[in-house]
């Protein structure tokens, strides 16, 4: 098997006396979707925030393309091409789509912001993702639907030429049609060579889109399997702790 783009080993993280991550291992591969599942409070978002550099880990190693790296700030993660679409979306509602997509890395020309270039690139990116529902890239994000916001957040990571895209419950608040669209988007993203990690509580979605499934249970990775080698019942068992995975982790 290829070298994973991301390889986490023995990740630990505590908030005061609470150990949230207790030695977690996780791999993500280029062109593949890895689903990260687990019950509420299992530590999924915490694991992801460490990778994004917004909430550094207390211990463990992070390898990127086989090289050990340290992720202490969002800029460091971003420089490696790691982009996160957060559970709570992390878009600035009062800014428009272009401003959100370019936030933190605006195109400038002669010291002022190059609105034209940014507008064009934003449109092209949305176009490339076959997004048709957005009327104008100058719409404020507050006027968008949940699915459209999710799309903007994903497009933001595409625009950054991300190598690793992590999506924290991208379909949690979406209706059937919009969920379908976002899952298609996730698949296309992986097919373009990006390593995708997706967190979801919806196992139907997970089985539809993921190549691998990693199950987190109370801060421990209890199973890490290829989707083809498992089934929904087993995964539910791992999530709730009623079943133990006996096989070898991917």
């Amino acid at each position: 098997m290829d070298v994973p783009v991301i390889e986490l080993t023995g990740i630990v993280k505590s908030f005061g006396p609470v150990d949230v991550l207790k030695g977690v291992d996780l791999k993500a591969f280029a062109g593949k979707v890895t689903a990260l599942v687990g019950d509420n409070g299992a530590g999924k978002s915490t694991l992801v925030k460490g990778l994004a550099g917004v909430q550094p880990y207390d211990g463990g190693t992070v390898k990127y393309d086989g090289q050990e790296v340290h992720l202490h700030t969002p800029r460091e993660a971003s420089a490696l091409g790691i982009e996160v679409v957060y559970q709570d979306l992390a878009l600035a509602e009062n800014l428009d789509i272009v401003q959100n997509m370019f936030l933190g890395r605006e195109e400038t020309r002669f010291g002022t912001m190059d609105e034209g270039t940014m507008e064009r690139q934003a449109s092209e990116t949305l176009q490339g993702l076959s997004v048709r529902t957005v009327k104008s890239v100058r719409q404020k994000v507050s006027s968008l639907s949940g699915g459209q916001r999710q799309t903007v957040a994903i497009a933001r990571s595409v625009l950054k030429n991300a190598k690793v895209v992590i999506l924290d419950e991208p379909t949690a608040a979406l209706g059937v049609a919009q969920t379908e669209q976002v899952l298609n988007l996730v698949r296309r993203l992986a097919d373009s060579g990006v390593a995708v990690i997706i967190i979801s509580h919806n196992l139907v979605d997970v089985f539809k889109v993921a190549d691998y499934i990693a199950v987190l249970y109370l801060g421990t990775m209890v199973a890490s399997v290829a989707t083809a080698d498992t089934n929904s019942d087993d995964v539910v068992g791992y999530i709730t702790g009623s079943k133990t995975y006996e096989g070898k982790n991917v």
Partner: protein
Amino acid sequence: MTDSHLAQSARSARLQQLTQLATNQSTILVGVMILLTIVFSSLEPKFLSALTANNILTDWGSVALIAVGQTFVIISGGIDLSVGATIGLSGVVSAWTMANVLGVDQTIKGGEASGALLIGTLVSVAVGVLVGLTNAFLINRFKIVPFIATLSTMGAALGFSVIISKGAPIGSASNFALISAIDPKVNPFSWAVIVVIIVVVIVGLFLHKSRFGLYTYAIGSNSFAARAAGINVERHLTKVYVLSGALAGLAGMYVYLRLGAGSPSSGTGRELDAIAAVVIGGASLMGGVGRMLGTVLGALILFTVQSGLIMIGVAPDWKKVVVAVLIAAAVAVQTLQSKNRRTA
């Protein structure tokens, strides 16, 4: 939908934004200004005069400076209560320096003292920067909410200005009101007001055209998103509070020039005028929303009301009532607008 279609609708949306800007808050505010002018001048014809305009604009100058800084602070999701006290403190410190170190006294006319005044201005702004740094330190380092942090520095600044001045104005108000001394003709726009307008325009462009301004909106809108995008939120907020402090220092010098003295109480309550101007101008205390033009017009309306009421012989206390109504109306308009936007 083709790519050019998206880009085109982006352009038309930008145009729409422009027209919206025109139809929204600012137009309403200009309308209010015109209405006020018509009402006051029909009740008191002398209201329409260079002298009245001069009075209103001169009052406007000091509050415009701090309101412009306050606009940044409020858009960033904070509030700066210390600006009024900073006017007093910076005025006192700068007056003390000019009197005791540079030897400026009452017999010096404005024109002869320009070197000293320049140093006085620098001192005044430096004091403001120091207050701003203190605010930012309390907010970033100790995670004190801006309201409380700036309330504390407001108290401290007031205390220091009374201690330094021993409670009395430094300098003499009699012959030394420099704004009129330097240019005694009564124009609507005194030279000091023109300086304020230049500062306001520059800072306004800074808010609406620069990356700094954009990040201010982003932080006020969603500070986690800003952080996740790689913006150093703490450092940005430090700059915002320093800007607010520096402008309050500049306002301190303005008020000194106006009174001819540095008085510890010269800025008391001005922070509320500034906040009122920003809110009337369409900003949201929740952060992420606000326009510089709105703030400037908001401040102008405040002093037009004040001046007009005095001239038509209404007790000045009515100003507070009128301002309260304006604030409530501004917030109501804002709520309606955001409701429209959501359903659009």
